[in-house]
């Protein structure tokens, strides 16, 4: 399209503002879809990976603030829906290529300090703003994101709404009251890969890189809806992956039930992020809402036993209460900064889960061995 990927389309800047439930107002300028939106205001401190983050279903219903000021620099790659939509048929489908982690932007809105409409990268052919407008997601630039972040840090995640001048402002709404998992989970069964170790992924809002990495490791993945029944889940599979996903794990009661049944049937399970919380609930532990959660690429997690510390990519607002673990279960990882639980495993070696994202995207690699280890264990 544009020879050097620079799109310079002069747009008249419409003023807008982010209004928080506590009355705070952060003025900015609109660069996304010109419509207002409401959600839970959260921040991520990752410095790269806005396409991955925006399409991460775990951000469903949230207004995502980037603390790194300059956003949009390397644009967004083309997205030809045909090429990337997984096949409805029984035949093998293709997971969506990077950098997208799901088929659409999941965040309710975007807030940043210094947006670059002009971008530059050999893989890019549309600006972030163009993509947001195409996806009908509002976004503000010119916001004092550090002031906003400090506010969230002090008061905890706050409900907020993006108001664009001349558009009716919606009411505040708390996405955690909705069943976000149901919103983002696949509606039909998806099959990836023809041969290899059969795995079933219960999709609570999966990031595609989980599928990609399992395929790379010679597995064949069947992705099923969050509320599938045990029978369907356990059907010819060597193990089950509980994917990540948005919101409060207790909203996914059905999935928790299914997982209990799977545990009874002694089906090996690996949980990731929300999947980790669901496994914990199924195992009789408790979860609770964090003040403002972990959303960053630099969460240090220490593996109990080895003392090794890993930089992990995270995105969650709820966490497992480490002390509530039942007999047979132990903490696998602990957050080196706030001591919160970052993973659990069962004595039997059958069930394990991590709060962070071994699949990264966005964020640092270095914990993919968690997948290898699981596959090793169930081969």
């Amino acid at each position, binding site marked *: 399209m544009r*020879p*050097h990927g620079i799109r310079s389309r002069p747009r008249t800047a419409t003023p807008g503002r982010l209004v928080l439930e506590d009355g705070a107002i952060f003025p900015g300028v609109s660069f996304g879809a010109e419509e207002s939106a409401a959600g839970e205001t959260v921040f991520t401190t990752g410095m790269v990976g806005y396409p991955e983050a925006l399409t991460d279903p775990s951000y469903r219903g949230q207004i995502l603030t980037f603390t*790194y000021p300059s956003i949009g620099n390397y644009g967004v790659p083309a997205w030809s829906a045909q090429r990337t939509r997984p096949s409805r048929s029984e035949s093998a489908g293709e997971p969506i290529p990077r950098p997208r982690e799901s088929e659409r932007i999941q965040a309710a809105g975007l807030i940043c300090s210094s947006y670059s409409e*002009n971008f530059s990268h050999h893989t890019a052919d549309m600006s972030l703003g163009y993509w947001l407008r195409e996806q009908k997601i509002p976004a503000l630039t010119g916001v004092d994101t550090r*002031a906003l972040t400090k506010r969230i840090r002090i008061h905890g995640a706050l409900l907020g709404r993006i108001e664009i001048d001349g558009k009716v402002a919606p009411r505040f709404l708390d996405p955690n009251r909705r069943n976000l998992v149901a919103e983002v989970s696949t509606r039909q069964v998806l099959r990836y890969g023809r041969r290899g170790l059969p795995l079933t992924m219960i999709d609570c809002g999966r990031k595609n890189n989980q599928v990609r990495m399992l395929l790379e490791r010679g597995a064949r993945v069947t992705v099923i809806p969050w509320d599938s029944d045990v029978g369907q889940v356990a059907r010819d599979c060597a193990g089950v992956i509980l994917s990540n996903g948005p919101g409060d794990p207790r909203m996914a009661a059905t999935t928790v039930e299914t997982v209990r049944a799977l545990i009874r049937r002694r089906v090996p399970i690996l949980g990731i992020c929300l999947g980790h919380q669901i496994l914990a609930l199924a195992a009789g532990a408790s979860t609770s809402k964090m003040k403002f959660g972990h959303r960053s690429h630099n969460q240090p997690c220490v593996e109990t036993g080895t003392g090794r510390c890993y930089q992990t990519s995270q995105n969650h607002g709820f966490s497992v209460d480490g002390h509530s673990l039942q007999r047979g279960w132990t903490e696998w990882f602990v957050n080196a900064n706030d001591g919160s639980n970052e993973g659990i495993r069962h004595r039997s070696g059958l069930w394990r889960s991590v709060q962070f994202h071994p699949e990264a995207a966005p964020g640092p690699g270095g914990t993919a061995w968690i997948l290898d280890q699981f596959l090793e264990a169930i081969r």
Partner: protein
Amino acid sequence: MATRRKGAGSGNGRDGRMRVILLGSGALKIGEAGEFDYSGSQAIKALKEDGVEVWLINPNIATIQTSPGLADRIFLLPVEPRFVAKVIANGRPDGILISFGGQTALNCGLQLHRKGVLKRYGVRILGSPISAVEKTENRATFAREVRRIGLKVPRSGAARDLPSALRLARSIGYPVMARTGFTLGGKGSGIAAGETDLRRLLVEALSSSPQVLIEEDLTGWKELEYEVVRDRADNCISVCNMENVDAMGVHTGESIVVAPSQTLTDEEYFFLRDVAFQVIRHFQIVGECNIQFAIHPKTGDYRIIEVNARLSRSSALASKATGYPLARIAAKLALGHILPDLKNSMNETTTACFEPALDYLVVKMPKWDLEKFQGASHFIGSEMKSVGEVMSIGRSFEEALQKGCRMLGDGIRGLVGNDFNISQSLKDLSRPTPRRVFALAEALARGRTVEALHRKTGIDPWFLDKMARIVAVRDALRAARRRGPDPALLRRAKEHGFSDEQIGLETRRGAAEIARRRASAGLRPVVKQIDTLAAEWPVRTNYLYLTYHGQEDDIAPPAAGRRVMILGSGAYRIGSSVEFDWCCVSAAAAVRRMGYEPIVVNCNPETVSTDYDMGHTIYFEELTFERIQDIWRKEAPLGILLAFGGQIPNNHALACARAGMPVFGTHPRDIDRAEDRHKFSTLLDRMRIPQPPWVEVTSRREARKFSHRVGFPVLVRPSYVLSGAAMRIASDPVGLDSALRGAAEVSRSHPVVVSKFIEGAKELEADAVASQGAVLAVAVTEHVENAGVHSGDATVVFPPQKIYLETVKRIREITAALARGLNITGPFNVQFLAIDNEVMVIECNLRASRSFPFISKVSGVDFVDLATRAMMGAEVEAVPESLLDLDHVGVKAPQFSFSRIKGADPALRVEMASTGEVGCLGEDLPEAFLKAIIAAGFRLPERRHVLLSIGTLKAKTRFLPQARALRDLGFTLYATRHTSRFLEENGIGNIRLYKIHERRQPSLLDYIVPDRLDLIINIPAGYDRRELTDGYIIRRRAADFGIPLITNAQLAELLIKSIGMK
């Protein structure tokens, strides 16, 4: 714990305390500057926290690390195996740290290891294993090892001689990059388009290093750098990644650099991080390490360029950019700690095993001083030539870039709106020069497209587009000339990093009016903290910057405290470097001891004064008047100390006073009376203090008239400059004309001063402190070289060894008189000429001078502490003279970097050219002197083959005794035509060497190579600039081949005397 586990204090009866030696980096030179004072002092602090006893070896007397109180013992000795071995033999340390003193320390450590010294005395190298250092330093081995683990390095091979190198190049295919191992700052490396180029490069490369690496040319690829850390438990973190705005082909030290990277996707960013980890794991790095990458802009393909298994310039930058103390952590890891056990020193609660998240971006800009080197090429490339750097912080690239431009000083107003000449750079934008970035802006303004400039320069369109946006704002401002900028436009301009002065310039208004408009529009910058975690965790840091991208201050306006603002020195440059950082740090410490809270303003990432661990508030900011005012409004300090950061802060004195910001110490009016030649000269006349005759001229005619009246030679210079920029000596009308042309070009706004140049005068200085006009302490120093060699390039002796007490007495009187006359309170420096016991004053600076750390450390009297207390109005006793007459001698010797500046004439003159200095102590002058010059890189002649080429007959005659002495010391004398004949006539046998054009053997060219001559004494005939004389060729080759060179008669005399006595 860890320390003991690692056999701390193994015996040696040191109550179980571990003893380590830390090697410093010696004098500041191009490629190795202040950053190592920062890393070193931080490491020393970290080690001492663990109860380790630290012995520091570093001859750089101007550094903070060599100040009493940090290391347990300080050795002002050359960082040289011979000297270090002695210290080891006496001290029997348990370990040695070689990664905190740059390439100098690393190389010295390697040699100690190879010579078996470390083994003999059972000294462990702490940190990365020596094998890691050896493998990463040898480019060929490195490439092999990295390929073996399946990672990509440029196609390349190593060669030890010309033929094999040429063969190699052919197989790789031109253009190729030729580089040498064991160097810093890319010495002797470059890109060869074809065989002839390569031949030229190789001669030199092979002379400075045993082997060269020929490799695939990656010019135009993106260049990136990662700062990574690994502990003994194999935990790895990537602390900071940086992207060079200038593409591959421009040395990282020469590039504008931005942190974090701006044009990498998540996939690329973390892919390179993983590669970096694979590399440091393979080499078993323990501590800090920097790794450079190239990425192809269109394919995303990558190459690993190099790894430095030590703290580096980039690691200092990374520490300042992120707030992560790399040197501190590296030191802890070297002691055996592991990352998760260490805390993030920014908040003391979270772990140090994390990767900082920035919520701002940082731009580093190099500072060049090429104008100071006559004959130097103004192009930059894969070799380092910059002498310093600045770091700016902003919340948009535009803001940070323009701040960075201003931080460079020299009246640069930003990316646009400058009045210096860029036509040179504009002509060919594909060839990088120090001014290219400004030329790019101009090109964009003239309608060149981002795409076109990208193709020409390889600079990523993203960066060019940001420059274009700055230009667009400039145009908007011009369009608003009639009505003046409205609040919206003002805000936009400010967010794009425009200063009031810039805005005023474009809208044809004064900066003051813009400031007013800004104020009435409520436009003020906000204060933000640097906290390593992007506000995710609460912090109490005093590490601050200002930005216009924000609506609220991070820190509440402090309640009325007793704050004192201290202005730092800005970018290191020739004539202003680490010595002024020492002054600022010492001043900050002094005011803190007095119960005040120091606030330091500085923008130089190499400094210790910007270390957030120094116990003072830091504004990492511009040293412009506008910013000083902004900070003043935020902090409401009691007053400003600006006498310790060199000339840049000093120049703000009057403006600050006028704006109602009290300046501590000498009243700015009096500072001006000393700075302004007319006022100063009148004062001298009134006090009957002699001075060389001078006039201020605005036309050539006046200049000629004056010169004829007082007689040649005359000295031509613009006023108000430090380090003699554009100063010339003219010995005849022709020289005068060219000198005037030169001077006018350097600073149009300043008038030109012509003064009688006094030949054969001794030069002396008085560094002093006074309180309300009464002198508290005076240190008189003596230059070895006669007047005519800039005080910054002179070899300085303290206390004086060969001047009459009469002269010293006179100097003390004059110093006291000036203190009275200028009603001085604080530090000052007076420069004198002494000729047949008449003493004249050439200048007087009412601020701390370059030599303050030297005299303070040699005498043990902290002149800065004294001055600060006086300025803060404390009761201060005068220092008894007895304290300052010492029974030992200190010698301060200059460090030159001529080898790095292609074409520069390495002769001493009135313009300062040295990039650093060392200071050594001795029982007598010869001992101190020899130590000092060795520490400054001078190799004593072992084979004793000396080339003599003495300019004038007068000089030849004067030199005779030295020539005899050399012969008697068993030197083989070689000489050029006239010198040779002269020596023959005086019965001194010598071998004549023939000039190129003489076409006879033995020829100069064949002889001026290493391992033929090991000393060259060349005393230039005149003072005038005359490039490409034979003298120049001799001097230049000496520099290119690293042969010790002496170009001053007095220096030669002292050297020969000293060699004779030892």
